[in-house]
């Protein structure tokens, strides 16, 4: 019943100034730039066979050759064309990152909803386990897991899923706890709805907003992680082009043949920055709405 023109309302109104319900993304310049970068790389990944002048694993030039007309980004230490490897490398990363995040999200939703809805001992135990897992620097976790099970695409996905699930579970759980205390959930209990119904039809739809934004952010983190794993030698096994591994392999010659490391570094930076700009713009906009 209070006059709602209080401080916070005023601040929100100001933020809503530049927001339009349908076209909010388009009005956020940052998100637009981010999205364009991501779309560019997706296109590149799809069209890689058409755009690349050579096959990525073939030796087509001299070792550590400088950029030239035939090799626009030079060649690596084995004589493979950097440009082609770059284009093909985008495929694996753009496939693995969203896929692993998707797996993590599905696990996280199940665990988070269960913890948030049932509470009590189930919640306590789950949270303690997650706290333990999250206490570890994620990278170390990946290292230990992959060192244990070996490096391959599936294992990378598994590692990233395990690394990402605790964070998502946390978010879903806190959203679930918040929604659970809302009165329409109490009304559902009074009707005698089953726990499954309440979790998936009443609580989950109301958690989706912030969850989607967080998922976009996580795809960025996953890309980051895949690149770093490749650099540390824990990513996809050779000879497949993997941006991180390309940097690791060329590291020794960095002062004499910088192109072998510079272009993959710029590639991965641009992709992750693009993803993060987009996710950031999304979260800013959703907060305004």
């Amino acid at each position, binding site marked *: 019943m209070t006059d709602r023109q209080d401080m916070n309302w005023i601040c929100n109104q100001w933020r809503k100034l530049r927001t339009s319900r349908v076209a909010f993304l388009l009005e956020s310049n940052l998100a637009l730039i981010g999205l364009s970068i991501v779309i560019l790389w997706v296109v590149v990944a799809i069209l890689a066979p058409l755009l690349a002048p050579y096959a990525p694993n073939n030796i087509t030039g001299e070792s550590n050759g400088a950029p030239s007309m035939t090799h626009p980004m030079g060649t690596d230490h084995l004589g493979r064309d950097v440009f082609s490897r770059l284009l093909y490398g985008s495929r694996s990363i753009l496939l693995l990152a969203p896929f692993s995040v998707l797996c993590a999200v599905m696990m996280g939703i199940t665990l988070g909803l269960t913890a948030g809805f049932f509470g009590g001992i189930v919640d306590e135990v789950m949270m303690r386990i997650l*706290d333990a897992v999250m206490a570890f620097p994620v990278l170390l976790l990946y*290292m230990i897991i992959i060192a244990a099970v070996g490096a391959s695409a599936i294992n990378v996905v598994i590692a990233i899923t395990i690394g990402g699930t605790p964070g998502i579970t946390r978010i879903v759980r806190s959203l679930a706890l918040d929604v659970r205390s809302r009165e329409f959930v109490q009304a559902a209990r009074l009707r005698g709805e089953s726990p499954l119904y309440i979790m998936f039809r009443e609580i989950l739809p109301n958690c989706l907003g912030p969850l989607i934004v967080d998922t976009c952010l996580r795809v960025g983190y996953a890309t980051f992680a895949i*690149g770093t794993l490749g650099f540390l030698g824990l990513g996809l096994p050779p000879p497949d082009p993997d941006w991180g591994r390309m*940097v690791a392999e060329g590291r020794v010659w*960095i*002062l004499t043949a910088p192109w072998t490391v510079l272009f993959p570094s710029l590639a*991965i*930076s641009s992709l*992750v920055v693009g993803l993060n700009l987009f996710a950031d713009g999304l979260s800013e906009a959703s907060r305004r709405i």
Partner: protein
Amino acid sequence: MTEIILRRLGFMLLTMFIVSITIFVISEVVPIDVARNILGQFATEETIAALREQLGLNCPTSARYVIWLIGDDWVPPARELLGGEDLLPSGCTPEGLDRAGFVRGDMGVSTRTGALVAPYLLRRLKSSLILAGIAFVMIMPLSLLFGVLAGLKEGEFLDHFISITSIVTTSSPSFAVGVILIVIFALWLGWLPGISALMTEASAFESPAKLAMPIMVLFFAEAGYVARMTRASLIDVMCQPYIRTAILKGLPHWEVVFKHALRNALLAPITVITLHINWLIGGVVVVEMLFGFPGLGSALLEASLNKDLYVIEAGALLMTFVATSTQLLSDIIYVYLNPRIRYS
């Protein structure tokens, strides 16, 4: 307050216990043969079997775990006491491995180098701590400052500049940033030395120039995140009703910001920063690998690639200890800074 501390300590012990068991279990699952790894592709089956025997690898995992935890130097006296019975399965106590167990400080022997794990890791830990300390002292005040500036000038050019720079720097993977920096500073400008193969613990700290780039990379990785969080926190605080009260009381703007807003705005960033100490110590593997810095992270990476079980175990537990300590520190600071909790 005491309850929080005790709870954390208990939690820490429990976590370390669980982690230690998990790692042993994982290593059992993995198919890599340690002995074969060490001896190389051309070793014969006999030499491999002998090495396995020597390293005590034929012992069942559970027994190995117990030995690792509490040692096996008590076995002979116990055996005598109990009339000559074999307490442990055969193959578990090869001669020459007189161990005191982890709980008494003996972290075992590296299967790769044969050297004692404890001194090796502690040396590495020390290097990491120093690097983390220097980085922390240089990065945190600056990033807080940037965050506050961005928050105060929300929407203006300075804010956009700081925000975008922050996003770009934190998003870029640290190895990529490192590479770009090396190309710029070592190759083109020649101001700083390039990387060397592997610094020893002594040589790492002998000239500040060697540390300049690792610290720059750490700065780019961390500063942006802290700055953006501080900015968000400050903006949120400035929208609070009590700031409106302060302004409408007729306080000058700078007093409102410094005396009323900052106190509340810095609460969240400071507690998160303490958690980042954790990352600076163990998570900077990439920086260590890129610049050849002898720290804890790279020790663990090498151990993982070589399945050096005892190094992995000790290293992981060390990391867990550091992590829970920083969480405890963060909790304490939060309680101390937040009057609502301190005086309730």
